[in-house]
């Protein structure tokens, strides 16, 4: 439920075998050699793959048999990858940053990006030679997220993460009699209608299929509708009306048994993408071409559930996740970090090339517009152009409720929601326990 982000590589390559013959994208490279490797911290090998498969070939570097990346000037790029699970990535990153271990660049996810943006461990982009004006084609919200308290921009994202509701065309037709995405959108246009539809699916399928995997998936969406972040400027915990609404909604879903009880990222949750137990998922950009294609049980229309999906706006606009590139304060090779950030997050040509081959939704309005204008379709979604839907949602993204505390507080709330819907606690007790838990984890915060 925490986190986020990302995308591509293995699947990208799979999807684009047909494009392999397409001409390779190239760009100039004039970064002086330093004789030292560039060290990048990440939580998976996705960005490593992006460098290996896009950046290195484009600048004319080489990738050796054992995977070592060598730039045209002879410098190497090295990765330190540690899993997000159990918080290992941040533990190691924090230790390396505070000890002064060699580290030039690292990746941040939306859930905790602000923690690093507001710290001294990230360099303002201006210090590595990237002006705010250079980011003008990025979706504005991605720039705002990386802005620290003093207005400096401390990171840059290669992707935007607007969210949609994805559903199975065949199951929708079977249980709801719905034939087109437009009809489906009518069935999920707001939360009341959504709930009715959930009841309809459960009833028509005799509980064999559910509209959504779990109540946690609803939180992913509704949290973006809050009016205040979890913690206000006076360091007080704010329990927004949406939180109360969510407790009630989750309770209804549980009492009427309207979800498949597959918590986000659980085995059943992943498996549901490939079987008929779950009709729909909330996903943003990276979730479709990375998570869904990976778990659908096929790689071409007709295989598994590939091609049987379609996207609609869903009950409300939302965003989910995103990954930002940051230059570490200990960065020893600013020109190279600048070049990499420009390649993936600023230059239209390279971003368009990457977008077409990977199906990742890049953070460049001009490149996206060009791609849509040229006629974009995705066979995983039965030939739908979901980029147009993304493009409509993205301007509506409001990240003002994002806070450095999100990852942890969301998890603490989850514990209490589950107690509440399981019937272990009443609402007031759950909220009181939630406040205690937050204050225990963040002693600087007060709760009423």
């Amino acid at each position, binding site marked *: 439920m925490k986190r986020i982000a990302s995308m591509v590589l293995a699947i990208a390559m799979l999807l684009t075998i047909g494009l392999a013959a397409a001409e390779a994208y190239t760009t100039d490279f004039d970064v002086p050699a330093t004789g030292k490797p560039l060290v990048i911290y990440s939580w998976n090998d996705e960005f490593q793959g992006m460098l290996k498969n896009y950046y290195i070939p484009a600048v004319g570097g080489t990738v050796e048999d054992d995977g070592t990346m060598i730039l045209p000037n002879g410098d190497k790029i090295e990765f330190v990858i540690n899993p997000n699970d159990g918080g290992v990535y941040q533990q190691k990153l924090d230790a390396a940053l505070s000890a002064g271990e060699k580290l030039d660049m690292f990746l941040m996810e939306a859930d905790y990006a602000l923690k690093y943006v507001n710290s001294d461990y990230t360099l303002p982009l201006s210090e590595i030679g990237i002006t705010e004006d250079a980011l003008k084609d990025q979706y504005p919200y991605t720039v705002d997220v990386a802005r620290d308290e003093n207005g400096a921009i401390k990171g840059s994202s290669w992707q935007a993460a607007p969210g949609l509701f994805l559903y199975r065309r065949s199951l929708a037709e079977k249980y709801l009699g719905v034939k087109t995405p437009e009809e489906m959108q009518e069935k999920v246009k707001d939360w009341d209608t959504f709930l009715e539809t959930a009841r309809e699916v459960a009833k028509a399928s005799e*509980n064999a299929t559910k509209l959504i995997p779990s109540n946690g998936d609803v939180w992913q969406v509704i949290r973006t509708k809050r009016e205040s972040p979890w913690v206000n400027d006076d360091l007080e915990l704010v329990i927004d009306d949406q939180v109360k609404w969510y407790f009630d909604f989750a309770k209804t879903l549980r009492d009427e*048994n309207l979800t498949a009880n597959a*918590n986000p990222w659980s085995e059943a949750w992943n498996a549901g993408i490939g079987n008929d137990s779950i009709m729909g998922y909330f996903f943003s950009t990276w979730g479709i071409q990375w998570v869904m294609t990976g778990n659908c049980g096929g790689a071409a229309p007709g295989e598994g559930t590939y091609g049987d999906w379609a996207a609609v706006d869903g009950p409300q606009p939302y965003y989910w996740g995103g990954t930002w590139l940051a230059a570490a304060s200990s960065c020893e090779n600013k020109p190279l970090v600048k070049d990499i950030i420009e390649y993936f997050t600023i230059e239209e040509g390279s971003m368009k090339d990457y977008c077409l081959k990977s199906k990742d939704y890049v953070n460049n309005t001009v490149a996206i517009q060009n791609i849509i204008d040229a006629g974009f379709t995705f066979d995983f979604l039965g030939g739908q152009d979901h980029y147009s839907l993304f493009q409509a949602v993205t301007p509506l993204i409001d990240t003002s409720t994002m806070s450095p505390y999100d990852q942890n507080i969301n998890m603490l709330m989850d514990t209490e929601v589950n107690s509440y819907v399981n019937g272990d606690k009443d609402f007031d007790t759950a909220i009181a326990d939630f406040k205690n838990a937050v204050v*225990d984890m963040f002693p600087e915060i007060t709760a009423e």
Partner: protein
Amino acid sequence: MKNMATGRKNKSVSYARYGYLFILPFFLVYIVFQAYPLINTFYLAFQKYMLTGAGKWVGPKFVGLDNFKNVLTKGYAIRALSNTSIMWIINFIPQIFLALLLAKWFTDTRMRIRGQGLIKVLVFMPNIITAASISVLFYSLMAYPQGPINSLLATLGVIDANIYANPGTAALVAVRFLEKGWYTRIAIAFINFWMWYGNTMIVLISGILGISPTLYEAAEIDGATSGQSFRKITIPLIKPIILYTLVTSLIGGMQMYDVSALMLQDGSPAKAMIQTNTMYIMELVYSGTKDYGRGAAVSILLFIVTAVLSLILFFILRDRDENMVKRRGQK
């Protein structure tokens, strides 16, 4: 014998330096590599020192016993201590009994269990895999609603066969094992039991094998049954090893972390009943605000509890231990 003893007594004075020499490498390495975390933990327990959720450093500032007062009156330290103790007790008591029983069987020369080599190898196997791999397995066994345990209950008719049935319509529905405190506690205790009884057994066996066989032979000639030999010879003679087992299990139990942490699903309400002290320390120091002061205070409290309990064990089992060293050393 007599004259040898006197000769030795004079010499034993000069041998003392060998004592220091032999333990020197241990303490040298200890001071260089391990003393720091220990001293640092004591130091931090008396400081207000944290990195807030927003990334700001606070302290270090000396605050006396504030951290201790804080963790004893607020937060979850006491709850964690009780969770840890409960899960340790329900794992360790069956574990030591089973291990003793197996050790007795496999060292009993009269019983001659065939294939015991293989059995000894197999029952130790769970100790070879990491807690992570084992937890993943139990995690899926206990999954809701389609995990094998729930499916089995459905097949047996204990719960409704339609595991997706509406709670209102079915008499009994699939169980959320991983969200129910007691089920999760028992699962954690069981995994720990199952991972470690083989290890405890091997330790006890190696202790029993250190006993001179002549003692058993003599007992057998005197007509002692194998049960009598075990009670009168084995148990008293392996008391030091039993003490080792009890104390290290106590220490390991009090610092229980892996299995409980891995069996805690994100957002599971079982957290209140399975969060151990070490998990709580990790949460204080690595999640949210990194509160080193309170984390260190909980560590010291855990140390005090462990030390007191260990002292009690040493006291109860002392006759063949410290006394024996004294007797031997002075000989």
